[in-house]
């Protein structure tokens, strides 16, 4: 309950969580969670179908798997957008600003970032584990592209910060411009990563294992660490770009103000986190592996 508005009345009669939603006219009902969850689960089912199709013998083709996956992703995105719309966007200016609803979003983001540390740490632990045993021959992964991308990502964090500052000072135009610039830098970063993958996979043939005479020889355990960590990070940058994109569009359409910017803040937190992970990653995987 929001402490400021109706303190003392615990339990019923307080705020209803889903006043403006489908199905219409109820306070505690929304189709979006169900739709989002079915879409999200469908992505897992799609992945399962891909694996069954690859094994063969189940009467399932890649086409079915792809159809289920794409359909599920669509449903998932549809659910998320509907939820965001009814939860945050639709009545943006009608809702009262409340300290408490802001701090819950910020706490939610902090907790989520905590879980992200755990997600990444498994990959880092694998890397340190194999590094302790000696990495053997590895290609030179550190180069000018990495330096460029690193500087770009760090710079984008600063630009984003100044964008937030601008919003808090009431300078909307500067806020939107700098936010757009951040988004652009993020997209360039992703482009750089894609180019790097192309180089390593197609040109340098840098893969974890090679098949020789029907047998798999794990020639390069470092490659698994490299692709797992950079790939996971790439996914995170992409998600961060999507979040910034949503904030950007909402900003363009006139939402947010000097007092109301909690989703700008949470999206920015996420972006800074992804940036910090990248610095660790460069230190460990790119520099640590080659220099030590």
């Amino acid at each position, binding site marked *: 309950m929001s*402490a400021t508005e109706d303190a003392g009345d*615990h339990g019923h009669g307080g705020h209803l969580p889903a006043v403006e939603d489908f199905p219409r006219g109820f306070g505690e009902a929304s189709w979006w969670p169900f739709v989002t969850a079915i879409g999200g689960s469908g992505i*897992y089912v799609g992945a399962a179908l891909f694996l069954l199709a690859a*094994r063969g013998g189940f009467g399932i083709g890649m086409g079915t798997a792809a159809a289920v996956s794409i359909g599920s992703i669509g449903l998932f995105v549809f659910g998320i957008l509907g939820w965001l719309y009814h939860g945050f966007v639709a009545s943006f200016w009608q809702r009262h600003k409340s300290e408490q609803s802001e701090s*819950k979003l910020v*706490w939610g983001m902090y907790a989520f970032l905590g879980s992200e540390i755990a997600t990444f740490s498994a990959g880092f632990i694998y890397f340190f584990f194999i590094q302790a045993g000696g990495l053997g021959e590895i290609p030179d992964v550190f180069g000018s592209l990495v330096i460029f991308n690193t500087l770009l990502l760090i710079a984008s964090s600063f630009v984003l910060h100044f964008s937030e500052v601008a919003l808090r000072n009431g300078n909307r135009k500067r806020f939107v411009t700098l936010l757009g610039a951040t988004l652009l830098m993020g997209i360039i970063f992703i482009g750089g990563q894609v180019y790097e993958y192309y180089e390593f996979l197609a040109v340098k043939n840098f893969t974890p294992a090679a098949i020789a005479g029907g047998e798999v020889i794990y020639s390069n355990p470092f490659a698994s660490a490299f692709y797992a960590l950079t790939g996971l990070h790439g996914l995170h940058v992409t998600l961060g770009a999507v979040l910034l994109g949503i904030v950007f569009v909402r900003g363009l359409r006139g939402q947010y103000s000097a007092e109301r910017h909690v989703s700008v803040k949470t999206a920015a937190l996420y972006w800074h986190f992804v940036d910090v992970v990248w610095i660790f990653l460069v230190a460990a995987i790119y520099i640590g592996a080659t220099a030590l």
Partner: protein
Amino acid sequence: MGLSGELALTLLTGVLVLIVFALATRFDDWRTYTPLAGGGALGGETGYGHDEKPGGIVRWLTTVDHKDIGILYGVYAIVAFAWGGLAVMLMRFELATPAMDVLASVGGRAFYNQLLTSHGITMLFLFGTPILAAFSNYFIPLLIGADDMAFPRINAIAFWLLPPGAILIWAGFFLAPFFDGIAASMTSWTMYPPQAVAQTAAGQDAMSYEYAGRVIASSEIDTAALNAGTDLMLLGLHLTGVSATMGAINFIATIFTERGSDVGWDKLDIFSWTILTQSALILFSFPLLGSAIVMLLLDRNFATGFFAVEGGGTILYQHLFWFFGHPEVYILVLPPMGIISYVLPRFSGRKLFGFKFVVYSTLAIGVLSFGVWAHHMFASGIDPRLRAGFMAVSLAIAIPSAVKTFNWITTMWNGNIRLTTPMLFCIGFIANFIIGGVTGVFLAAVPVDLILHDTYYVVGHFHYVIMGAIAFAVFAGVYYWFPIVSGRMYQRTLGKAHFWTTMVGTNLTFFAMILLGYGGMPRRYATYNGVTAEGIIGYFTNLHVIATVGAFILLVGQIIWLVNMVQSWLEGPVVGPDPWNLKEDGLPSREFDWHADRIETTLADGGEPAEDEPMTDGGEPVDADDDAAGDE
């Protein structure tokens, strides 16, 4: 035992189940009261609240109300409990004799291993975590004076990820009859590679080959031969992990920011403290398991070699798994400890003894639980210095657990004890937890563990905690809060029958396992007729028979429980505002205040009046204790 024996056994079980059911329905405490017309209101929304939710099935699919979601979690968990329980009954029947017989015609050892895997995964991930989420969803917002969870829609999403997760986890069983290349997974709940990477649907090793003079088990890729059931299970497990993490984030945000203005940190109840700690543990452990699962999937399907000998090896997997796995056992036990700390004082007529120390010990366990994981790997050949360190921390973690135990006992000391069903389960919890904890301390000592590792002693240890303590606390909570959730009272005689069958069944089954472990019976074996040592086979057989009998008693008890719950929910007597006479003892609690409020609102809205006499379970009205002033 051939096919006819098996048929006879099935028939016998069926008849017994029917008899229990029939007997259970004969008990009719509540029939002496006139049931109110119209039956119970599912979800307890009597009289008010109709405007907030649509009717019928749509209500349940669209609900974002934390109470409804709590009920959904509960129903889901009970279905999982039934699945896991039936799987283990089949295993117990098989183990009653040394040779392969009951399961011989349905897949033999391979099928036994499938049941074993499904039992473990189901009970831990689909029953354990969700049943605790049922309590926390329903009661945390009430206990901290919040309108709802911080993120009601995320709360609903987290729940709806679970049913598809369960279907994927169990999918191997459903698909096996139709396709050759698939069976339910046989990896056991720990999913160690190389087995978890290399098993075929027949339970064989798909990939052993020689490499540099050694036989290496994860290097030849013959992915077509791998058991797809394991892939589906891993995907489902990942999904349920995502759900648990979302729930944890939600509880952290809720407890930090949604507390009512009159609920400061100093006023936070003990159950909320344990849920907060549990959520922090989930936050840092489940995503790590998620990554390890993805690495397994990649190893299985894309030759990444994370856990191949040339990569991180299987020891790396064990580190990752147990870094999750040990916190997981505290994820499962902390909220039950919270329930006990919350319910036990209410039937002891006094406040929880040393409230602060119970909170501190909860936090201490939370921190320490991340520093003990390698005690599961003492026998794996890790560095002896590492083992010594982990042994020290593991012994240390017993201290906060013991602090709690002494606090509970001291709370009861000289208290005004009312032996209601929830209280019986609380006391049973303490008794069983002591055995489970002490056996754990023995296992934490490296030299003892090297002898007892991978024997039934370990199985006995953790079942004393998981069944004897965690499930008992769950039942204590179910009975204690049944009046709030259903608006009705359960049947006391059946409740007590449930307690005694469960208590006797648990101790028969799991004490026999501890003795089996001392005798050297290895865990995860479908047969033991290969044992040749003189006298041992008889020892094993007798103890296994005892364990099977105990398991059967447990089954009977749980059927009694289900009958009681369903029938009382539909037709039990409607309760008054203070069914446990908490006010008289000066031990009011927030959620029962809310319950009383709701009844008042219902009356004001023209609902039907509740019975005059509050229904209590053996709760002779007691004189208020002198020192029992106020809530903890």
